[in-house]
């Protein structure tokens, strides 16, 4: 059930739609759900830079496009570099146009990490959004650096052995003025964070958890429910870091004190089916450690 307070916030979200109803996304896709709110927050003076990923597919086939905003599609590894050229060109000609990279976890944590790191280090004036469906969706759900331990993908048929890469720590090491986590299941929060990110000069980063029904193997009506369980279990923590200062979202603070059991998040997802006790325990310990780490960081300040 949505609270009255939440309804209030939704009222402020513009009616304009930039992601039109004709996308070719799968039913229950969080990628397009998140993007809908990202673009509402950014408004029409925006260019979206998209590397190879599900978002390059859901736009539809030329000469049609399902996005009512300029979209520049670019090679898989090159989104941040392309955006840094674009942002510099706009600024050189006195234009304030928002340049937003909208990239998957593969295009961010794996093949695109070099160009992304370079663009952040150079202080590029742009917003980089990684929507994280924890695998390579475009090519049919192979593992990525963002796939959690124990999750089955087409290249980890018995469950991933390695842990999820901590991209947020890597981004934090670049000291961007603004970075945040968000989730497609919390669109109001995402909307506000995008609006806020765009007020900063220089690079900002938002990491959006994007549950994917075919990839995570759950039924399509559960997208929002699973996204909320990720937060309520403490597996995904919503926060923002402004000039290094961490603020954890109230939803996550509550969840960190009294998390719902991890099983409740994992059980509806086919990709964790048959996860062994040891892997489960490692995942759980990792979750506890992460909660402690972020709580300590927030308390410190």
């Amino acid at each position, binding site marked *: 059930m949505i609270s009255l307070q939440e309804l209030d916030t939704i009222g402020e979200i513009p009616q304009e739609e930039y992601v039109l109803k004709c996308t070719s996304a799968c039913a229950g896709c969080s990628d397009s759900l998140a993007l809908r709110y990202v673009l509402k927050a950014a408004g029409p003076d925006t260019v979206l830079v998209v590397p190879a990923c599900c978002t390059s597919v859901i*736009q539809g086939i030329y000469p049609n496009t399902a996005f009512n905003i*300029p979209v520049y599609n670019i090679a898989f590894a090159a989104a941040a*570099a392309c955006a840094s050229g674009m942002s510099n*060109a706009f600024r*050189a000609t006195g234009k304030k146009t928002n340049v937003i990279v909208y990239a998957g976890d593969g295009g961010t944590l794996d093949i695109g990490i070099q160009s992304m790191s370079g663009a952040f280090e150079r202080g590029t004036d742009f917003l980089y959004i990684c929507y994280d469906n924890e695998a390579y969706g475009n090519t049919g759900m192979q593992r990525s650096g963002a796939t959690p331990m124990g999750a089955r993908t087409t290249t980890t048929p018995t469950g991933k052995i390695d842990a999820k890469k901590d991209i947020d720590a890597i981004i934090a090491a670049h000291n961007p003025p603004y970075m945040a986590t968000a989730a497609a299941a919390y669109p109001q929060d995402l909307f506000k964070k995008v609006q806020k990110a765009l007020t900063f000069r220089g690079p900002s980063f938002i990491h959006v958890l994007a549950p994917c029904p075919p990839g995570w193997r759950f039924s399509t009506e559960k997208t929002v429910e699973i996204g909320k369980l990720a937060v309520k279990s403490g597996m995904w923590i919503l926060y923002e870091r402004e000039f290094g200062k961490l603020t954890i979202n109230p939803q996550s603070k509550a969840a960190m004190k009294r998390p719902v059991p991890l099983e409740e998040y994992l059980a509806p997802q086919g990709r964790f089916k048959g996860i062994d006790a040891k892997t489960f325990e490692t995942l759980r310990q990792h979750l506890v450690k992460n909660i402690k780490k972020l709580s300590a960081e927030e308390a410190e300040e």
Partner: protein
Amino acid sequence: MKKIATGNKAVAEAVKQIQPAVIAAYPITPQTEIVEQIAEFVSSGELKSRYIPVESEHSAMAACIGASITGVRTFTATSSHGLLYMHEMTNWAAGARLPVVMANVNRSIGPGWNIWAEHTDAMQERDTGWLQVYVSTVQEAYDTTLMAFRIAEHNDVLLPVMVNLDGFSLSHIMQPLDTVETGDFLPPMYLPHAIDPKNPAGYGGLTGPEQHFKFRWDIERSMRDSVKIIDETEKDFANRFGRKYGFTEDYQCDDADVVIVSMGTLGKEAEVAIDMLRREGVRAGSMRLRWLRPFPKLNLKGKEIVVIDRDYSFGFGGVLAKSIQAQQKTDVFSVIAGLGGQEVTYEDIADFIRKRRIGEEFWFGVNDHV
């Protein structure tokens, strides 16, 4: 204005004259001096460009693409491994119809590490949709870089242009340089498909076979149209600044029985060889190919042909020799020489001509003349 400069400095001088809005580049020997000189021009304020010191060549080309699609001038420079590293993006720049200009300082490819002149790097880019031109002097490097922007941006072309200069044997040698004020030689850039948030469009998304096929043909059509634009531009340049170029630089070819075809600095060396042979009574000429793409119709009818390739396509042959053989429908004497900066003197070139064996391939320094 008259000065003395290296090939690299001449390229940087041309870029300063052009004032692109965005430059993104990554250093590599023997191109480094271009990047350093540009950085210096930017910091002294002589060059008003935004200079993006990217973390790799893949990103250099991606940044040029991102900037160019907003409708502004862009430039980058690279060499060898840097060029190959950006290969995915060189294809993208051409396919996206962006008039990026790049200087490539020709250098061999490892292993092992060899930093000297060879054309293999640019040859591996020849099917990407870039226009490619090879220069032989410091002045020509400067003039050609200026012309490259006008040709690339012409709305009948809208393809990127690569200006090639030999590593060290041109990039690092000093020669006189006469710089010019381009004035209205270069009209303001107009990119018809520039990104405009007021008129939102999708770029480079999913494309079906029929449309893809059409886009490929569009590239080829513009490549063919570029022949006229190159010709016009070089003529206008000659009228304004007094220096004449062409698809080839022909030296004593008219009455020649045998013509040696080459590219880059070896083409200048060949002219000295021709003088020597002429004194011996051999009716030889030299044809230095400037534009590799679009590949011009060469006027070699009735001549014996010797071709120097500073490149090789393994399992096939010298790229120039094979191209000319196919175009002229006749056998040539194919000389493979100068790889990895191997020294090739005018005496050696004279020998290639004297001891030619039409229909054969000769690896200089590996095979013996017979």
